[in-house]
């Protein structure tokens, strides 16, 4: 990553800087550039090491004495073993399923609610809004929430990973603010033309709100994908656990993956590379998806803050 790649050619008038702004000195630019690269490396370097180690062979890992910084050989053997059925495969599928259905459910509920509250002057919308917002100021507490989930018979079902965290009031407020600000006139005229609310939502409001919907979908999806705590208290069957919990067992608690200990003991697989591969499985979906939605983040973060 040279400075040039970042567009930091010192001394040249870029045209981006207004005339009154002094041109930075070469030294100043260099310091800034190096700092920026270091800051970015603080994020990227650990991820790089994890990825490279997960792709390294047992021999490379033994040679380097552990983590691999410079790739020497690339092998997918650890991924193949992990995804050939068994604990990690199952956990990955569980996480994918919970994330998919959870996000779908959360989005449906949130979009409907946001739209339902978006018409000025509709009946009861103020009290309902208060009921929603109040939940942002208090938490009922861990114990009573647990008791309610248990009392409803949701423990040991995947519903316990979805329902208690399905609605995020902040996300609803962001969606609502967006719905209210976009296409007022279009919505009005559609209503005058006799379109029903579902139709307006589906054919006018949602297509116009793609950006914010993408952001909120990502927020929900990341929330479900990253969650581990609810699974740790609501699920007792180890076979039901999602990826994050299995990762906790394998990496933080340093347990050996069930079914692979034979191959690890005989030196065919590296326990370290296995751990790294599990970590890559957990980070890959978000690392791939987040940048696509990135340019909309600001919109998603801020609209909710500006309008009630």
């Amino acid at each position, binding site marked *: 990553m040279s400075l040039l790649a970042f567009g930091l050619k010192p001394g040249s008038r870029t045209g981006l800087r207004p005339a009154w702004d002094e041109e930075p000195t070469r030294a100043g630019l260099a310091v800034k550039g190096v700092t920026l690269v270091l800051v970015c490396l603080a994020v990227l370097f*650990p991820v790089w090491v994890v990825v490279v180690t997960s792709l390294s062979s047992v021999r490379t890992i033994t040679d380097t004495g552990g983590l691999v910084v410079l790739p020497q050989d690339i092998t997918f053997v650890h991924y193949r073993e992990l995804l050939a059925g068994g604990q990690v495969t199952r956990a990955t599928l569980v996480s994918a399923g919970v994330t998919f259905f959870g996000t779908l459910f959360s989005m449906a509920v949130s979009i409907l609610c946001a739209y339902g509250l978006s018409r*000025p002057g509709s*009946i009861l919308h103020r009290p309902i809004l208060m009921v929603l917002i109040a939940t942002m100021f208090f938490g*009922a507490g861990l114990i009573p929430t647990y008791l309610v989930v248990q009392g409803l018979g949701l423990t040991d079902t995947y519903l316990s990973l979805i329902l208690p965290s399905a609605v995020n009031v902040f996300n609803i407020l962001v969606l609502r603010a967006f719905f209210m600000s976009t296409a007022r006139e279009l919505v009005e005229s559609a209503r005058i033309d006799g379109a029903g609310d579902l139709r307006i939502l589906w054919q006018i409001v949602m297509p116009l709100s793609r950006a914010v919907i993408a952001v909120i979908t990502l927020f929900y999806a990341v929330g479900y994908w990253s969650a581990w705590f609810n699974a740790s208290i609501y699920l007792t069957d180890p076979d039901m656990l999602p990826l994050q919990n299995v990762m906790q067992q394998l990496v933080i608690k340093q347990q050996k993956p069930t079914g692979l200990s034979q191959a690890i003991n005989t030196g065919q697989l590296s326990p370290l590379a296995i751990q790294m591969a599990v970590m890559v499985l957990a980070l890959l979906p978000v690392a791939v998806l987040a940048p696509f939605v990135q340019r909309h983040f600001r919109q998603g973060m801020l609209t909710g803050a500006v309008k009630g």
Partner: protein
Amino acid sequence: MAHGTTDTRGTAASGPEAAAPRTEPGAGTRTGQSRRTDAAPRVPLRHRLRRDRVLLLMVLPALLLLLVFNYVPLIGNVVAFQDYDPYLADNAFQAISQSPWVGFEHFRHMADDRLFWQAVRNTLAIFLIQLTLFFPVPILLALFLHSFVRPRVRAVAQAILYLPHFFSWVLVITVFQQMFGGAGLVAQVLRDHGHEGFDLMTDPGFFKFLITFELIWKDAGWGVIVFLAALSAISSDLYEAAAMDGAGRWRRMWHIQLPALRPVLALLLVLQVGNALTVGFEQILLQRTAVGPTASEVLDTYVWNVGLDNGNFSYAAAVGIVKGIFGLVLVLAANKVAHLMGEQGVYKR
């Protein structure tokens, strides 16, 4: 929101972390302007009800979920005044109805519970450390990023810096473990040079700073968004006028950019203080065995430990109630201070 998985909020909200990240979503709470645009205020109630019934139906699912999982548990807090015994019945609701009442006994017990006060101390210590070490980082980072004029530089840097926000806490901690743990990269390099025994992850004395650095790595980049938005809203006329009057880069930062950030700063500070008792729950839960409870136990993990791990639901709920009440008082007080200082805070007066 007290509850562990609300990372979404953080995500959504978990700005400065579960606890902290939670702050950002909070940003959305500034509501309640009463711009009454009632389309037809004089339409009779019955007609409005009929007119808006579809809208009400649309709100219903979300409302039900909130009632069941946010409001009903509020009532569930009655177990704090009982000796709740989960084995009285298969179902928590029946068990609650059959458990004996003990009044305020659990609350009295708290006063001389050494572990409880230790959790309080740890919570406040971690809050103060994060306030001084974490809070300024996104501001500095935003000023720094803003000083780059090329949009592409900023976009690439932001994409990279946002990334860890989307990592789960399990992932963040495992990454730190691989870097700074006993078998991590730093230890590995040190070992090659003859130094043994480096392990930041199991050092109780360093633990409070460790979780702060984890928080910085995960969320400082994400916290930049709000500040960058505020910075880019500054009119370039201001800069130009200041430059004409001879203000250099640093003076412009001091006299233009920092004042522009004031409202956002006040808001985030209020949220941070309001969340003071909710620091680092998931993080600490994942790492408490490595460093022991003396260094790591905070109120939230104490509730978890006493209630879910040891089965003393009633006492844990009592601790949770005390925490919740003081948390609410903190939010309101922080808001009051913000108002007194002429800032908006989370909600308007």
